[in-house]
């Protein structure tokens, strides 16, 4: 059996409103594909991803495995991150939380179907993934 990987740019995910982004990711992963992107979801989106995954679990889709590495924000990038968060909060107020867009944090994320990913071993600066197809 073959295992497919999709490399999706964070810019492509940034383009999608929050309510569409999680669905977009899960449609790819539920199809049996591993998604890798050069960004990291914010904590509230990570928890939404888990929640939405649980809604989609069925006999053929037991869920997902996720691993991410966030680039630590220091100095100016830390200030920029906080400003972006404030901008997103304001946008949520005016546009509504689900239609608002928000930027991914700098880093790396892998999201894959749990039926193929058997183990994720995470370290502070790296992770390894064991798959079985």
């Amino acid at each position, binding site marked *: 059996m073959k295992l497919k990987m999709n490399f999706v740019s964070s810019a492509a995910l940034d383009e999608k409103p929050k309510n569409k982004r999680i669905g977009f990711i899960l449609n790819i992963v539920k199809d049996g594909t591993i998604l890798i992107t050069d960004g990291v979801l*914010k*904590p*509230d989106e*990570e*928890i939404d991803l*888990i*929640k939405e*995954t*649980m*809604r989609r*679990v069925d*006999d053929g889709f*037991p*869920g*997902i*495995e*996720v*691993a*991410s590495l966030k680039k630590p924000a220091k100095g100016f990038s830390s200030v920029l991150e906080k400003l972006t968060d404030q901008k997103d909060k304001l946008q949520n107020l005016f546009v509504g939380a689900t239609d608002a867009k928000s930027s991914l944090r700098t880093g790396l994320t892998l999201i894959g179907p*749990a*039926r193929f990913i058997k183990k*994720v*071993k*995470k*370290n*502070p600066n790296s992770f390894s993934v064991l798959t079985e197809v």
Partner: protein
Amino acid sequence: MANSVIDWLYSLFGIKKDIKLGIYGSVNAGKTTLANRISMDWIGQQVGKVSVIPHETRIVQKKEKVVMKRSRKKITLNILDMPGLATKIDYKEFLKYGLSKKAAKLRAKEATDGVIEAIKWLNNVDTVLAVMDATQDPLTQVNITLLGNLESRKIPVIIVANKIDKKRADPGEIRDAFPKYPVVEVSALKGKNMNNLYDAIAKHARRR
């Protein structure tokens, strides 16, 4: 605002009232064993049933008015034992424990609903005990996501490094993985170090 003023007045007399204490963590980290231990220690009542089969707790279990005393402080806790958080739930796992296919599928469905319910409760808890199995690798996505969300919602959290009675337990690994958070090492099963946990709750727990 009114709550803050009332809480401040109570705190002058060493009283913390009606703190919703959420017990969160991965599946089989020992959350219900811990909830039972806390509740038994203070009011002599169990919170829920414990099982070796994963996802035994599939609905939020509550025990209200658990009054805890620490030196001159009196803290009233409403304990909320949450279903275990997970990114995957495979009904086939339950077959290994002798469940029928039908029972396993039902358990999986209830478990997924339980995870969603536990996540929704993040908006309502005041303080969280994040329970981690000290025999397991703590750097899991569930633990990272949980702590990230508690931090962004400004919810006080105490990490409970559980199962330290086991030979393979390495609570130091949990401390190294999450150095920003208070970590208390306990064995909920054996009741080891529970006073340290109660001191930490008295120190960190507060209403939001």
